[in-house]
């Protein structure tokens, strides 16, 4: 099983089978990340496309000084914000419900978790997603967001307090 770096090196040489595998590994994760920022499926799918095309075209520029995932989420974030700026000039709206209800019972609790997540600011929500779901460290997230580590810690601190308040 090729690791991310091997796949990315093959993508840099425009190997389409490797590109497909990298897509399989990242499309859903990038989609979810974009959803936490944009809260709109259609826009999040555009971010997946834009991100993966940017990865295809820019794979050769990957320096190898970070994890591939950190690099790809950084690309995704740039694409999501570029899209937000384009959308701000247009009229499409975001703000769909963020998470599907849990069909296997505990619907009420799942609903509370969902609404707690929705109450966070997009900046808090993306930190929570990258930290809790992707397992990235605050150093890695600071790199993706282009902000100081203290800012990431502070966003998490406030996000956690807000979540605990709703979910206690």
């Amino acid at each position, binding site marked *: 099983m090729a690791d991310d770096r091997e796949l990315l090196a093959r993508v840099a040489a*425009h*190997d*389409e*089978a490797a*590109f*497909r595998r990298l*897509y399989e590994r990242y*499309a*859903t994760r990038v*989609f*979810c990340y974009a*959803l*936490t920022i944009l809260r709109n*499926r259609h826009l*999040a*799918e555009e971010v*997946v*496309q834009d991100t*993966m*095309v940017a990865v*295809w*075209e820019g794979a050769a520029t990957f320096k190898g000084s970070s994890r591939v995932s950190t690099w790809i989420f950084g690309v995704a974030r740039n694409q999501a914000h570029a899209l937000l700026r384009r959308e701000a000039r247009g009229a499409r709206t975001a703000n769909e419900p*963020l*998470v*599907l*209800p*849990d069909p296997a019972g505990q619907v009420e*609790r*799942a609903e509370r*978790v*969902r609404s707690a*997540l929705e109450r966070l600011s997009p900046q808090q929500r993306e930190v*929570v*997603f990258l*930290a*809790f*779901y992707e*397992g*990235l*460290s*605050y*150093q890695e997230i600071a790199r993706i967001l282009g902000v100081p580590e203290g800012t990431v*810690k*502070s966003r*998490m*601190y406030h996000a*956690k307090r807000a*979540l*605990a308040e709703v*979910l*206690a």
Partner: protein
Amino acid sequence: MNCRQARELIPWQAAGSLPGEERTALAAHLAGCPACRTEFAQAVRLVRELRGAFARLPEPKDEVWIRTLARARGIPLGSLDVGSFLLGLSIGLSVRGGKVPLTGELKIFGHRVPLFEIEGGAR
């Protein structure tokens, strides 16, 4: 380490990404502070619940891969609104010997109209 510092680190420890030095310092604080231990237990539960919530997010449609590959090959799919005619569109896609053929066709009034058929490498 005081409680405020500990509480900044607790979510990261609960997520399992705190670097060694900070992890050790936090562990020392938790050993002597029941309030922060409660906070930590709460954070662990929160991480578990939110992972579950994120895992239930939907997936991107298959069509997104077709569009992505088409764009990677420099095919101007952007001028076509795939979504609007997807009901009548069938898309074949398979990986064969490192090349990924991309085909699509459109059904118009029962007639199949080839939309695109590109063997890998047709850039």
